[in-house]
């Protein structure tokens, strides 16, 4: 095995081109588990912790550009205002030790259907920035996940950043697990209400081969809010709206039975999470959370 330790992004993409089988490692919270358990013996480890371009975030052109190496702990400490949904998801990851090391880029790279960031990134309409010696491209989050632990990333590409719109209204994230810490999600749900655009974003985690959106639920809720003039009046949700939203969110899932839960439980629980998150988000909206964040 080789241990590659680039000091710049240029060096990193050059190394990835030279060793396409190299496994990028940042916090190691997925990669080292596989190595410790002899599940994986990569040709090389590509340590990204010394690539300065990856470790910071900035607000540029109205988007948060979150470097792939930004840790969950940083997201929690610094981005609760701009990206409340991502910060909520980050708080549910692992334990303090894991959040100190694990990164959003690593969560994407692993492309697990259960990754805690993914529903939030789908709900927000984020895009993944990938770089190689051939150049750089943006992959919409909705096109990034191809299957369980498979992403649209090419063998010579590295995830450099995620571009995420600052919250355009209330965001929520909820996750089911057996305890609060150290839990892989049984299922998870993320929601964004976009006041100015009169639209809704959703993301489902751990209830399908990939993280999923729930487009019918999004269209239903946006339509129900518009028809009743609720975006303007901020009146309480009419009877049945959150119930129907939950049913449509559950219907969008494609869950399986596994050690963490049955498909039937996941579908039921997703409906509950969707109902709860829309109630919480609408409460925030009614209390005045209606404007886009702008740093």
């Amino acid at each position: 095995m080789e241990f590659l330790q680039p000091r710049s992004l240029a060096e990193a993409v050059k190394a990835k081109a030279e060793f396409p089988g190299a496994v990028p490692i940042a916090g190691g919270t997925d990669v080292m588990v596989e190595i410790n358990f002899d599940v994986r013996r990569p040709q090389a480890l590509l340590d990204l912790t010394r690539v300065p371009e990856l470790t910071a975030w900035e607000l540029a052109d109205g988007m948060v550009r979150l470097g792939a190496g930004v840790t969950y702990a940083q997201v929690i400490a610094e981005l609760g205002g701009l990206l409340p949904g991502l910060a909520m998801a980050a708080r549910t990851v692992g334990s303090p030790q894991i959040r100190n090391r694990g990164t959003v880029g690593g969560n994407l790279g692993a492309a697990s259907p259960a990754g805690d960031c993914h529903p939030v990134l789908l709900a927000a309409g984020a895009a993944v920035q990938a770089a190689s010696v051939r150049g750089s491209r943006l992959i919409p989050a909705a096109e990034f996940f191809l299957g369980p632990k498979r992403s649209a990333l090419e063998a010579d590409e590295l995830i450099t950043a995620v571009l995420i719109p600052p919250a355009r209204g209330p965001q929520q994230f909820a996750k089911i697990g057996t305890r609060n810490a150290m839990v892989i999600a049984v299922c998870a749900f993320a929601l964004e209400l976009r006041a100015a655009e009169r639209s809704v974003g959703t993301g489902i985690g751990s209830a399908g081969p990939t993280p999923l959106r729930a487009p019918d639920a999004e269209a239903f809720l946006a339509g129900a809010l518009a028809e009743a003039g609720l975006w303007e009046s901020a009146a309480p949700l009419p009877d049945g709206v959150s119930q129907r939203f939950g049913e449509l969110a559950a219907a969008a899932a494609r869950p399986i039975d596994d050690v963490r839960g049955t498909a039937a439980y996941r579908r039921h629980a997703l409906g509950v999470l969707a109902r709860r998150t829309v109630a919480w988000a609408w409460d925030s909206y009614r209390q005045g959370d209606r404007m886009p964040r702008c740093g």
Partner: protein
Amino acid sequence: MRVTMTVNGEPATADDVWEGESLLFVLRERLALPGSKNACEQGECGSCTVLLDDVPVCACLVAAGQAEGRQVVTVEGLARGELHPVQQAFIDAGAVQCGFCTPGLIVQAYDLLRRADGVPADPDIREALAGNLCRCTGYQKILDAVRLAASRMAGDAA
């Protein structure tokens, strides 16, 4: 490969390190520091918690090469002549039974208390220690130990 780092304030070098080796393995098997315990090897139990550049991490999830040139503090580095107040409190409160989780809990509690103002609230202690598993104590004596250490440290500071 060779890995050189600062461990508990002293320069340390390990040779013939395999590229996929963890920092935990280097500490225990190459640098004769068996305080950090090897239990789950997947970041679930916290018994290998060390400070890497002053941040608590699971040493089993750090590739040895990632620690090159970095500062590492293990449970062995907390005592300065006498036991650290967190260590003494674990003994005095009866928070140690089999002892396997103790080094990780002590490093993690040390990190909590050096940032705390007075005795942290129980939910904050539980949150800080959520990644450290103990199968013996039922955690009540561990919470006692953290509160005892906190009050002693606050007393010392006053």
